[in-house]
């Protein structure tokens, strides 16, 4: 199939950037979306032109590196699929495809389709952990976890930190990402000792990074390639409210 691509090109963080049109020719339906972009890049480089820069690594939907908005939807049209897992059989000959980076104030563009998502790492550093040193922990079986809790924790732990939730939200909110980590640990006994402080610290960092607030649009859940549930946001809001109301000692988390 032959396709027309409209791709965001931006030379660096200070460049204004613009959409540039490319032709993708002889694309096999078996190709993945990123392999299609590789094909376009190969042709560009053969003409000694700069290839389109985009983040990617595992190409199997687990590392969270790939981050493209395709035809207005983060990770493209397929539900619960990262853009690296999308295959070209979902498109047809003659289609036009718009390709943009994640758009959010807290994710500045570095170049072309590559954005800076280090805000996510800083949020995790603020409280997305249990404060435990290596060694000196009890036997794994000393902590019993009811199976439903373990399954729920796993559902939330499946977050790959890609940022599609932020990219899909009109407010540029990171609530689903933060809620995923908070909810994972909230469902586990190991997460209980620091549960309140975790909510306060992670939300504080999230706000500091410049993400927007949540107005219950649920675009995040729809765009999430791992199908993280907005129920996590409800849990996080409860934890945050409870933490604010309860007196918490002046101990920094960690």
């Amino acid at each position, binding site marked *: 199939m032959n396709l027309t691509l409209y791709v965001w090109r931006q030379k660096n963080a200070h460049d204004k950037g613009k959409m540039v049109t490319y032709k993708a020719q002889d694309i096999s339906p078996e190709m993945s979306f990123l392999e299609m972009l590789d094909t376009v890049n190969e042709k560009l480089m053969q003409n000694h032109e700069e290839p389109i820069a985009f983040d990617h690594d595992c190409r199997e939907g687990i590392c969270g590196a790939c981050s493209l908005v395709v035809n207005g939807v983060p990770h493209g049209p397929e539900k619960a699929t990262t853009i690296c897992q999308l295959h070209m059989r979902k498109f047809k000959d003659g289609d036009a495809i718009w390709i943009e980076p994640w758009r959010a104030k807290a994710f500045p563009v570095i170049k072309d389709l590559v954005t800076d998502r280090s805000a996510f790492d800083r949020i995790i550093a603020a409280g997305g952990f*249990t404060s435990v040193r290596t060694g000196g922990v009890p036997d794994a079986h000393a902590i019993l976890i009811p199976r439903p809790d373990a399954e729920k924790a796993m559902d939330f732990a499946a977050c790959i930190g890609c940022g599609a939730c932020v990219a899909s939200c009109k407010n540029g909110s990171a609530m689903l990402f933060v809620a995923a980590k908070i909810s994972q640990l909230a469902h586990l006994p190991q997460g209980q000792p620091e549960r309140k402080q975790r909510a306060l610290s992670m939300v504080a960092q999230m706000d500091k990074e410049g993400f927007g607030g949540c107005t219950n649009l649920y675009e995040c859940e729809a765009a999430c390639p791992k199908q993280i549930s907005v129920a996590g946001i409800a849990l996080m809001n409860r934890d945050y409210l409870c933490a604010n109301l309860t007196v918490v000692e002046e101990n920094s988390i960690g």
Partner: protein
Amino acid sequence: MTLDSKIPSGSLTEKWDKHRFDMKLINPANKRKYSVIVVGTGLAGGSAAASLAELGYQVDAFCYNDSPRRAHSIAAQGGINAAKNYPNDGDSIYRLFYDTIKGGDFRAREANVYRLAQVSNNIIDQCVAQGVPFAREYGGYLDNRSFGGAQVSRTFYARGQTGQQLLLGAYSALMRQVGLGTVKMHARTEMLDLVVIDGHARGIITRDLVTGKIQSWAADAVILATGGYSNVWYLSTNAIACNVTAAYRAYKKGAAFANPCYTQIHPTCIPLSGDHQSKLTLMSESLRNDGRIWVPKKKGDTRLPNEIPEEGRDYYLERKYPSFGNLSPRDISSRSAKEVCDEGRGVGPTGFGVYLDFAESIQRLGKKVIEERYGNLFEMYERITDENPYKVPMRIYPALHYTMGGTWVDYNLMSTIPGLHVLGEANFSDHGANRLGASALMQGLADGYFVIPYTIGNYFATAKQPKVTTDHPEFKKVETEVIDRTKKLLSLKGKRTVANIHKELGKVMWEFCGMARNEAGLKKALSIIPELRDEFWKNAIVVGQGEELNIALERAGRVADFLEFAELLCFDALHRNESCGGHFRVEHQYPDGEAKRDDENYAYVAAWEFTGVGNEPVLHKEPLVFESIHLQTRSYK
């Protein structure tokens, strides 16, 4: 160069405990005077950086990805082994040790492997404490499953994304230290060379992948946790950016590289669908718990799989290896798959595929149970192939997956360059010639959480090196070398893209240094590789500038290193005139097609010393002495 494995004396089961007492310690108040560089933030690097920072050392951690959580450890699916024996089915530390040594075809260092089995239980405890959401049974206890090469259920898992969850545990511990200010994290920063002063590793040179800035970093010790080199074959299950650059630079500076020819081809990956393909996707070995592998009995049987009755099917692993059946170790399963496809009985559009069939399990256990166990893997398969594994058998084929070879390290995980420690897949130590499933995760975390935090203190206390800063002339010298090489890469304005050349290298390696190797083929590879390398430096295209994000330049540097490293790999394969584990030389096999080891002449670690690009490296042998295990033919029948 002398190889001193520094294996402690005493009985096998006491060596590590004895060593921990004998090793020198650094006083808690003095630890903050020592700095460590950690390159790579996967399971081994992340856990090491976190643990060392907790102890009080100053840590600078580096990764080329945009976040430490993106390391390729994240993609491991099936599980992590430990000798807990929770299922009460006969496991023990000794059995895990034995299965690993046997699985490695008796080519691993006994003492290291025993220690690995010993700390395996501590790893599970640590991960649970971090909140890693392992699968649980109804009583609230951890669930276990079986993996290849074992007759006990010793694998702990978190659905089909155990690697992701373990890495996130280590990443959380790392980020806690970053938040506390004890680790400085440098993401999007790639190590391009090692700095050695007075024979000790004292720092690295990096390139900032956003600004292009070349920078020096000094420390009292350097740790490489930079993963494996499967991408030499271009197509592998590795992430696209995985590379051998850090370990190869260390090799060029004097860190012996061991057993590069021990490479693992995983039996269950999604088959190649076309020339455009950029990687091969792994289907977890855990699927082999419930899937049955088969091909048609008759050559050229093109019926749809569901139309072929039982009598027409050859469940060849069950037939050839009755005791292990579909859970035979990876090297054996991969070669068997290749065998049946070479006979013309392969399935799928290319004829290079075998079936992994869940029909019988779905009927026996119900679809819901299969969905719970493998749901996300089945979805992944369907996305890529557009086929539904609940209705038709999966098609799979072997693919490059893991590299047992790596930088040579002693019992303290230190290379032949004092101060340079290497952890995880990047080192050679624990898996011998073949790695068992669910043990890579175990080794990465063992090295990072429970070995290096002890052994690095001993290095500091005994090495007594003076402090250096990046003002030392050696840093400037190596920086200049890196800058010159970068300029040289950027000056390449030929006619072939780097990916195109990389693809050709991959084809040469798959053809002549893949699952079945022979002398003529390896010699052919050794004549083609230098020519391809020349072609690269004359005719490659590298567009763009250095002082910016430049994906073409990044890739070019990695492929340039592959084009040198591949030669070392083939050379090692050629010199090892036996078959063992993942290294199969067709000239050395039993009549039934099994690997034929030559313990009399080859029971050693081949540690290679660099003598110049294109020159034959010098072989140093570390004899493998087995005090506890009796060498035997490795049979899974």
